[in-house]
């Protein structure tokens, strides 16, 4: 009884006694053992020995945080050496802070971490069980009443499939996750499942990086491995790979931090980004796009002659810029001072394109 009231469940105490019969328990500052004349219980600033099992239960209940912490990590989480465990320990900075400090923080406001566009909060549940909450980082200050509450990790799979304009997101780590929702009271297993749906394999590759075992496949190796219709991508010039990364692998397009280079000893100039989790090789989207660029780069350059006013040349530049940065929607309907404004673009087309859509009537091929 005493144990339950003090925040330690009877089965947690039983698990501890069972564990001690196998050998001393030593975990996060807690030591419990059995010697010939009784149990030994030790936490910082407290050492008790010669304890009967009843006495041990009272001492354990009085220091429930240490025991529930052991129970959570050993019995509930388990998985020594796994990415899952490493990630959960990292979330509450378990290797840096005492049990007391972590429990205080989890109880007060929860411990927060960003994971891509996700905000993960660790809270303290009953008898030391952790409960996790997930929401969009943009909703970090939002009142839960204003958010749509979901129960199932699987719901995130559907939520993360489309952006806020309803368009399909083929790249899961694109910075276009919709906001306005939350999942709460997740178990550690459910949290891991939810992260796997939103950002697949990121926890595992982050863990490998943490352990120093991240296996990076650089551009050349990845390109040379391709077969079938992608066989050609290894012909993409070195210089163009630089443009590929500038186009697709920067923070504005993908939240992964690019760890791959052109080759192990031949680094790309494009910065890898500041993401929490690493990108270990060119993804399928980049390879598919590179196939197109490989074909385009095979074309010889030629000289065209166009008659444009200086402003019209600048307007073409502004249009490319706006499309490349995904800003076309932000340009106001009547803002004709913007080169990429729709009316401006239509005017340019009306003036400079012929009936076949050719700029200044100049044929593409002659």
């Amino acid at each position, binding site marked *: 009884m005493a144990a339950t009231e003090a925040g330690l469940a009877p089965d947690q105490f039983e698990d501890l006694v069972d564990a001690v019969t196998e050998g001393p328990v030593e975990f996060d500052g807690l030591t419990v053992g059995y010697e010939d004349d009784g149990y030994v219980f030790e936490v910082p600033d407290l050492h008790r020995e010669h304890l009967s099992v009843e006495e041990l239960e009272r001492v354990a209940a009085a220091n429930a945080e240490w025991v529930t912490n052991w129970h959570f990590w050993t019995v509930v989480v388990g998985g020594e050496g796994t990415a899952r465990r490493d990630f959960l320990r990292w979330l509450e900075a378990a290797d840096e802070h005492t049990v007391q400090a972590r429990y205080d923080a989890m109880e007060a406001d929860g411990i927060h971490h960003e994971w891509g566009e996700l905000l993960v909060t660790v809270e303290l549940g009953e008898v030391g069980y952790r409960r996790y909450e997930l929401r969009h980082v943009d909703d970090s200050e939002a009142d839960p009443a204003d958010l749509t509450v979901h129960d199932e990790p699987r719901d995130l799979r559907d939520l993360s499939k*489309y952006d806020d304009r309803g368009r399909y997101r083929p790249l899961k780590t694109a910075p276009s996750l919709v906001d306005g929702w939350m999942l709460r009271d997740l178990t550690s297993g459910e949290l891991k499942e939810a992260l796997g749906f939103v950002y697949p394999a990121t926890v595992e590759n982050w863990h*490998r990086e943490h352990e120093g075992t991240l296996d990076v496949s650089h551009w050349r190796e990845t390109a040379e491995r391709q077969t*079938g219709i992608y066989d050609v991508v290894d012909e993409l010039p070195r210089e163009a790979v630089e443009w590929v990364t500038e186009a697709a692998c920067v923070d504005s397009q993908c939240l992964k931090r690019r760890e791959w280079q052109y080759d192990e000893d031949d680094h790309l100039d494009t910065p890898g980004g500041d993401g929490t989790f690493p990108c270990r090789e060119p993804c*399928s989207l980049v390879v*598919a796009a590179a196939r197109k660029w490989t074909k385009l780069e095979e074309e010889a350059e030629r000289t065209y002659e166009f008659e444009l006013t200086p402003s019209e040349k600048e307007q073409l530049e502004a249009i490319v810029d706006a499309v490349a940065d995904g800003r076309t929607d932000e340009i106001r309907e009547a803002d004709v001072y913007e080169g990429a404004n729709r009316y401006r673009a239509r005017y340019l087309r009306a003036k400079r394109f012929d009936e076949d859509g050719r700029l200044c009537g100049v044929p593409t091929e002659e």
Partner: protein
Amino acid sequence: MQALVIVAHGSHLNPESSAPTYAHADTIRESGAFDEVREAFWKEEPSFRDALRTVESEAVFVVPLFISEGYFTEEVIPRELRLDDWEPELWDSDGTSASQATLYAEDVDKTIHYCGPVGTHDAMSDVIVKRAETVTGDPDVGEGFGLAVVGHGTERNENSAKAIEYHADRIRATGRFDEVKALYMDEEPEVDDVTDYFESEDVVVVPLFVADGYHTQEDIPEDMGLTDDYREGWDTPAEVDGHRIWYAGAVGTEEFMADVILERAAEAGADVRDALEKVREATGGVPASGD
């Protein structure tokens, strides 16, 4: 601990391409047959390359949600999963008889049971028939009906057509339908001329595709003359040249596909007996032919 990894094609363009994979994975997850169930894709994430590291189990059953043996199952998937000792001979297959091969993936230190694709499993014949029942709303459909099993077909890989032929032969042998034909998009006999190949007034057309997408929802209905413009939809059945065409859409969306995935894993040694019963109840499936 044992894990199931369902590997499928996925798409950068079509969000529905992965939908059947997720649906069947969910059914299997709910059955509790595996400690872990994951989806992995060629064109989506997790990629084939990263899939195996997302499971903790030492034994992993990899089931390709592909229709035929060929380029993907023999070359791309094993290469991307880093099954270094893989060679197609390990399946000892005639093009439709691949069952499984046990391999080791070094980067994750796991035993991988690499299964044959779902499309060539015998139980797939039952899924095709079930699809015919679903689209006609008649659990006894067969008499007076023709059945067309439609495949992509390609000159580049003979196994692609073999899988279609295999099921057409099996279903024909049951004598359930008056006529059974294998038709293709990209080779003869072509699905465009479906009515030329049947005497039966009623013809059920079942495309042997994993997901509904461009081919099953745009190309094939227009090519068969069910509609002039796929966006306007079509009737089921639709009248074409004096025949009633009952077009079923991709077979891979049939719930019973989850059973076939489990059957593949079971043949490779996964302990899924209890789950098979549960999944069959959930999907309305029947024991695979030959059980």
